[in-house]
């Protein structure tokens, strides 16, 4: 029993461990499968900063994620509260409809959403995109 659990934990942990170890190695060593900590972390960091504007994109990601989280929590918790407290036939039907929209794959909604955004001219500003994010 414990052997199985330990096996599962090792399988879960190993990719993370490898990620951390690989970040300190040269590209050649990573491909060769070296599993000890290397001395190339600083060089990797300089290469990364030289090739991409990392912290700018980090900030973009942060804005996007925080706005999405706050908006979806606010709207979803209020909607969930209302659906839980007030029951009648029409509201239960509405609740079922909302659950059905969750079953739709995002890819199916992408094109209509994209058209909505292009009509509203909301491109290239992170702030508005959180509002339309579908992964609640």
């Amino acid at each position, binding site marked *: 029993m414990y052997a199985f659990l330990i096996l599962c934990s090792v399988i879960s942990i190993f990719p993370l461990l490898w*990620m951390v170890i690989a970040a*300190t190695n040269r590209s050649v060593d*990573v491909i060769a499968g070296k599993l000890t900590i290397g001395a190339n972390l600083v060089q990797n960091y300089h290469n990364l900063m030289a090739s991409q504007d990392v912290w700018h994109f980090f900030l973009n990601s942060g804005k996007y994620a925080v706005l999405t989280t706050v908006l979806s*929590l606010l709207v979803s918790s209020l909607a969930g509260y209302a659906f839980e407290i007030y029951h009648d036939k029409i509201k239960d039907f509405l609740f079922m409809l909302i659950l059905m929209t969750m079953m739709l794959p995002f890819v199916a909604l992408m094109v209509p959403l994209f058209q909505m955004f292009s009509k509203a001219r909301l491109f290239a*500003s992170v702030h508005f995109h959180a509002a339309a994010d579908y992964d609640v």
Partner: protein
Amino acid sequence: MMFRQSAKSFPLEIIEAATTISFMNAWNNYLWPRVILTKSTAQTMPMMISSLTSGYHTDYGMLMLAVFITTLPTAVVFFILQKNFAEGITGVIK
């Protein structure tokens, strides 16, 4: 205010679990930002990682460092809100 009243009755564990999951989904979301953000300066971290692999040769050490940096915020959010995560995600209210 009505919102104030209803907010009091929300169990905090569930809000925390929902925050963790929602934040993780939003942070890791690749497809929608890729479709909608057209300017090259408006990129998110997953988009940047995918652009790191698109050259003639890929620097895997650098790539893994970028992935590591991208993992940090979700890890931080999870560890802050971790205490009641198991109760929150299963909807157990004491």
